[in-house]
């Protein structure tokens, strides 16, 4: 087929997919007596249309982008990192530990120390499935998934037990972080440097991956591990390093949430950012530059749909329905090859 025909066909497919999505959303909205077009317009306006919405979208984009990076970097080596959630919590725990229990750190060094701690914790959490996969071939998807829950329960244990705030009268939270341990924010918003780190990181990684030997090695490993071994590339090392490096970003997202958004360590820090990040990375084709607008768009959709509860009185489950449908549509749009052997 000629390129133009492919383009026409794929546009048609996209329109059909988008149309089907619109239809399903319309049916659901009508089933609860809502006007379709005004509600959808409100959704987009809530997410992108006014200053409050835009700021909130950017705030939400920060952990989503960082977790997407956590999934995309290992993907370059052919690994699936769905352990982002656990890596996020690992970073949050480490940063909180420094904030609460390292009084010997001078005020100005607290934030750098927290960053370092979060990065190391995330790298460690990601290195476990990375190393197990690189050295023994243990499936990193399953290990990562299980480690997510270990991290979540560890946070709960700490917060209900050894790290519980003695001044909070038994409520399961840690003490509030001192101002030294809170990241600086833009004006009165919750926007913190994490977004810059994410954006800069994406650009940097994109550049590094396409122009360095390291990036090239990862591509070889992904396409053909056998070739990689033939070329004597340190397979296990690269696999572990890519997962660990990706995990650092998720951990920084956790640090940001604990420090800025919550101001303490508590369970439920992440409403599934790790998994959402994985989906965003996939949507962007694991391409670090495309990840920026995709993360922005997804963050805006989440924020906008969420705000529909107040502006349109819709139930809170609407967000998940909408986002689930968006991802299903994206799945459908990804026409793919016929599998071998059918």
């Amino acid at each position, binding site marked *: 087929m000629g390129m133009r025909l492919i383009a026409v066909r794929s546009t048609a497919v996209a329109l059909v997919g988008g149309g089907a999505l619109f239809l399903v959303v319309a049916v659901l909205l009508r089933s609860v007596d809502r006007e379709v077009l005004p509600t959808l317009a409100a959704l987009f306006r809530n997410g992108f249309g006014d200053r409050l919405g835009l700021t909130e979208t950017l705030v939400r984009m920060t952990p989503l982008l960082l977790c997407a990076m956590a999934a995309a970097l290992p993907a370059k080596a052919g690994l699936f990192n769905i352990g982002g959630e656990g890596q996020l919590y690992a970073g949050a725990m480490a940063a909180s530990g420094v904030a609460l229990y390292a009084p010997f750190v001078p005020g100005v060094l607290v934030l750098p120390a927290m960053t370092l701690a979060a990065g190391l914790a995330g790298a460690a959490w990601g290195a476990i499935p990375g190393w197990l996969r690189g050295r023994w071939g243990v499936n990193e998807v399953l290990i990562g998934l299980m480690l997510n*829950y270990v991290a979540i329960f560890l946070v709960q244990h700490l917060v209900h037990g050894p790290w519980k705030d003695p001044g909070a009268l038994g409520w399961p939270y840690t003490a509030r972080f001192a101002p030294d341990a809170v990241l600086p924010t833009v004006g009165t918003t919750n926007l913190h440097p994490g977004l810059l780190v994410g954006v800069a990181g994406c650009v940097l990684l994109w550049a590094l991956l396409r122009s360095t030997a390291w990036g090239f090695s990862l591509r070889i490993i992904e396409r053909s591990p056998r070739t990689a071994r033939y070329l004597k590339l340190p397979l296990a090392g690269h696999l572990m390093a890519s997962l660990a490096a990706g995990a650092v970003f998720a951990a920084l997202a956790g640090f940001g949430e604990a420090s800025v958004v919550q101001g303490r360590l508590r369970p439920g820090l992440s409403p599934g950012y790790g998994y959402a990040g994985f989906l965003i990375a996939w949507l962007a084709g694991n391409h670090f530059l495309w990840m920026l607008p995709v993360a922005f768009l997804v963050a805006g959709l989440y924020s906008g749909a969420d705000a529909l509860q107040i502006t349109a009185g819709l139930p809170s489950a609407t967000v998940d329905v909408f986002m689930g449908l968006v991802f299903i549509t994206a799945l*459908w749009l990804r026409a793919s090859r016929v599998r071998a052997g059918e």
Partner: protein
Amino acid sequence: MSETFLWEPFLIAVLAGAIRSGTPVAFAAIGETIAERAGVINLGLEGIMLVGAMTAVALKVETGSSLLAVAGAMLAASLMALAHAYFVVVRGANQIVSGLALTILGGGLSGFLGRPYVGVRFDGLGPLRDAGGGSHGWGSILSGQDALVFAAMVAAAGSWAVLRRTRLGLAVRAVGEDPEAAYAQGISVRRTRIAAVLVGGSLAGLGGAHLSLAYTQLWAEKMTAGQGWIAVGLVIVSRWSPPWALISAYAFGALTVLHPQLQASGATVSPYLLAMTPYLGAIVALTVTTILLVGRGHAIPAALAKDLQLDQR
């Protein structure tokens, strides 16, 4: 508190509770075992269980028939599993993405459509022999359970028998170990996988139905509280064997009932460290078996490993 600790009623209560509370996750784990044996991982279990739970309650409230409620739950769950099967098997999409998308969608749909049924009373699925308060004898461990609990045991035994002894089961396993060889043998890889995923999904829906219809007898948003994910872990721990999936589900159930039982009898232990054990167990089990089998075999169904590592776009 200086009462003598009575072992017998404690054990009876724990065993009965373990079976009762482990049944929803047992269904999901047995179903997922079948799907994964055929080489497809379904991470949408959480959403599918929720859809099953909500559908069961909705149908029970609207029609009053437990049979319809259970059947409807299985049907709704199969539809979601069908979506997963279509995307993954027919279109070659990324299994993880498809599963995650279904988890999100299932959670949302069940919450959205289930709103009218929150806080609504209905007559749930009761035990075969009425329990009442106080302790009972050893027989009550089984007689105090509802019909679906026994259905789970049948499902475990039946799946094992089918996988081990029948041609269909052989086809499923073949497709999961070496799809190309299976295809060469004339087995339709596609159809077998779709069927396996459908069965897995409908069992997960049945698990959700048990949770809402029999165990708690109510519907609440996100009521599965992660049991769909636990099922994925249990499949690993049980080494892709349906009877072991059932046993490990009961063990998980024992963990969950152990905590309140210990509290009710006066002891205290960190519930979160306890809760971690199934996941740590899965990690250890998978790591150890993979290492032990290096070069000699597969720790997980081969096609599953290959598909998860193949970057499918």
